[in-house]
């Protein structure tokens, strides 16, 4: 029935989690070992997930009944095309962790490294679990692993303000998780089941009703908070800006996508059950996405702090994704799904490059960082590539997404949104051009900037690698499509097409 790699499914989740539990013990004598340990664990996990993806490509989606129980009886793990997202996710972790080895030198004393890396591993494991679980309550528990570790990761970098940002994130995140639990409980009460496919089936039998809709609304709000959509984005900028840069890369690139993936899962349930009126929700998503794009960009323009700027641009980019989902035409959904990958990649590039610059110079505002390209040419080049990429200029990774989503807008007869998308990107470029001007074309104002040296290779390597991936995925934009297209085709029947 299934190939040998299917057996690896639960282990791919458990490995980073157990690795995290072992981290303090492994690193008890030499705390710095924890960094290498975390990297090793993630490498093995990457191999496992690559195996899973190969299984998916070879034989299509597969399930795993945990404890030997059949799907709706026990907990089911399901590896479908949307779950395939875990592979790039883990690979990004593999790239980010080496960056953190040296970066942490100025963030925390050695003895706090083991719990830090434990948190990173927990975050990775939680996200893998989140993507592959087929059980609603299990989804909640994984959400909590991801969220809890994210709250803490925000706060590890500093005192006071960092703790405050983390606490704000925690309160908002906890409420959104509670809404999710509430919705899960309601669906459970309605259907008597927690398995997603089963719930969808039974909801179809029940055929809607207020409670079903309220549960949907609760899920939607919950995942909107997790994805930092515009009106409920308030937790994001401070948290992402204040966290250590590798953490910002993880949070901005990946953790916010939990909201997107979760939304897709819930859509699968509801549209599978055919209990939702599509048009109104899609229209709401389109508008919310458009507003997020504009407001994110608008706030970003006024930031001087480079990381705060990047954090606001995340809101903008999540707007792209949601806009694409809301347009609900094949091209748009493909674009949105590809942007889930590509934005993670681009944002990781930008945050790591920004982190390198902050690490080497000690400054983090544009006005302080003038002329840094002279002393850190490679990092600045990576930053420039990331900037061009996130604006969506060809031939970079961001362009592919913009292309598809805008095409989808025409396809969905929503041409104004297509134009809005194409020109909204320019709005974003305003602040990146400010950044590039400051880095490249203005003389340094600080000695530490003028005398900064390039980062050590353990930091520069990941940055350069990610930046080149931004370019490669631009000219070879078809690569993520191989995963995304079948997934979208899976979903589109539910999507009203």
């Amino acid at each position, binding site marked *: 029935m299934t190939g040998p790699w299917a057996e690896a499914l*639960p282990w791919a989740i*458990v490995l980073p*989690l157990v690795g*995290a*539990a*072992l981290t*303090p*013990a492994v690193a008890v004598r030499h705390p710095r070992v924890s960094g290498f340990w975390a990297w090793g664990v993630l490498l093995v996990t990457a191999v496992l997930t690559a195996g899973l993806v190969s299984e998916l490509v070879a034989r299509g989606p597969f399930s*795993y*009944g945990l*404890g*030997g*129980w059949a799907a709706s009886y*026990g*907990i089911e793990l399901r590896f479908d095309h949307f779950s395939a997202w875990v592979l790039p996710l883990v690979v990004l972790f593999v790239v980010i962790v080496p960056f953190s080895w040296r970066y942490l*030198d*100025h963030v*925390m*004393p050695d003895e*706090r490294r*083991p*719990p*830090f890396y*434990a948190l990173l591993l*927990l975050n990775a*494991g939680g996200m893998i679990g989140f993507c592959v679980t087929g059980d609603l309550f*299990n989804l909640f*528990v994984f959400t909590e*692993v991801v969220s*809890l*570790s994210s709250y*803490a990761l925000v*706060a590890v*970098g*500093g*005192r*006071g*303000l960092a703790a*405050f940002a983390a606490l704000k994130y925690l309160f908002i995140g906890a409420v959104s998780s509670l809404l999710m639990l509430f919705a899960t409980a309601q669906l459970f*009460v*309605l*259907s*008597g089941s*927690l398995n997603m496919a089963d719930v969808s089936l*039974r909801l179809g039998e029940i055929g809607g009703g*207020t*409670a079903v*809709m309220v549960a949907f*609304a609760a899920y939607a709000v919950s995942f909107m908070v997790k994805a930092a959509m515009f009106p409920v984005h308030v937790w994001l*900028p*401070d948290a992402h*800006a204040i966290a*250590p840069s590798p953490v910002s890369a993880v949070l901005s690139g990946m953790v916010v996508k939990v909201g997107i993936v979760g939304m897709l899962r819930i859509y699968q349930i509801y549209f599978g059950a055919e209990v939702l009126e599509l048009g109104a929700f899609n229209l709401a998503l389109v508008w919310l996405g458009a507003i997020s794009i504009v407001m994110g960009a608008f706030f970003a323009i006024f930031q*001087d*702090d480079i990381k*705060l700027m990047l954090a606001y641009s995340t809101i903008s980019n999540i707007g792209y994704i949601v806009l694409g989902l809301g347009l609900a035409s094949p091209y748009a959904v493909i674009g949105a799904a590809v942007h889930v990958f590509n934005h993670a990649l681009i944002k990781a590039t930008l945050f790591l490059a920004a982190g390198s610059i*902050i*690490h080497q110079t*000690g400054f*983090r505002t544009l006005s302080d960082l003038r002329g840094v390209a002279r002393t850190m040419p490679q990092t600045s080049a990576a930053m420039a590539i990331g900037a061009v990429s996130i604006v969506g200029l060809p031939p970079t990774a961001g362009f592919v997404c913009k292309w598809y989503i805008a095409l989808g807008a025409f396809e969905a007869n929503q041409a104004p949104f297509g134009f809005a998308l194409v020109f909204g990107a320019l709005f974003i470029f305003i602040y990146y051009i400010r950044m590039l001007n400051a880095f490249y074309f203005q003389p340094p104002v600080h000695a530490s900037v003028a005398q900064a040296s390039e980062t050590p290779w353990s930091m520069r390597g990941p940055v350069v690698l990610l930046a080149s991936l931004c370019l490669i995925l631009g000219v070879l934009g078809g690569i993520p499509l191989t995963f995304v297209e079948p997934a979208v085709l899976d979903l589109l029947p539910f999507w009203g097409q």
Partner: protein
Amino acid sequence: MRPWSLLLVLLVALPLVAGVATLPPHDAPDAPIHTQVGALYLERGVAETGMKNLVTAVLLNYRGFDTFIEVVVIFTALAAVLALPKGSAPLPKGNAPLPKGSAPVPKGNAPLPQPDAARSQGVGGARSREEEAPEVASDVPVSPVVRFVVRLLAPFIAMFAVAMLFRGHITPGGGFQAAAVFAAVFIALGLVLGQDRAARLVPVDWRPWLQGVAPLAFALVAWIGWRLTGAFLGYPIDDHTVQEAMGFVLEIAIAVGGGVVLARIFLEMET
């Protein structure tokens, strides 16, 4: 602030009430919650899992994976608390400047109230551990009576926890409850004896292993189950002895690991 809060609460309340109003009545025996999987568990649970307490059966067997992730969550909380900067530890050199200009957060850089001044007001006995006398927690004004009673009762409370742990398969109780009680014993002892003496109850070398013991035990049992039944975290249905052994390993690990984690969180928080 308040009117807006009330408005928000109302906005949230209305759909929630509307939602729960249309749910099936909660104690009707024919509600879906009692007729679907739940009914099957009640029907076959004892035969399939060998546990008379079906809550434990669901917890450890049918939905054992949830419990696995759950122990991971408390481990996450511990890792989180451990990873936070310590109050008295000096910051490493060249700490990155904090971001400026994000609206709702007070802006950095300007001199802030001195932590020491803050601490003397004392929320939760906030004194650094270095200053603390190792032998007696003289800073905690504990009456001799309380100290005596806690010390007297501690072994019995611990015994009760053990009883809860081992009777968990037939009565309400089990690993998590035992963990909570264990942790309570620790914390009570820490309060009356001083944290160092309480901490000494767990040897230093064991701590990194003990705090992760619950996830590790789960992974081990999951692996054993995989070898035995071919399914991750699978229990051999027809061999009740093995089932029970696996269950006990998990329960004990949850109790010990959970207790250690909870106690450690308490100790770490005393910055």
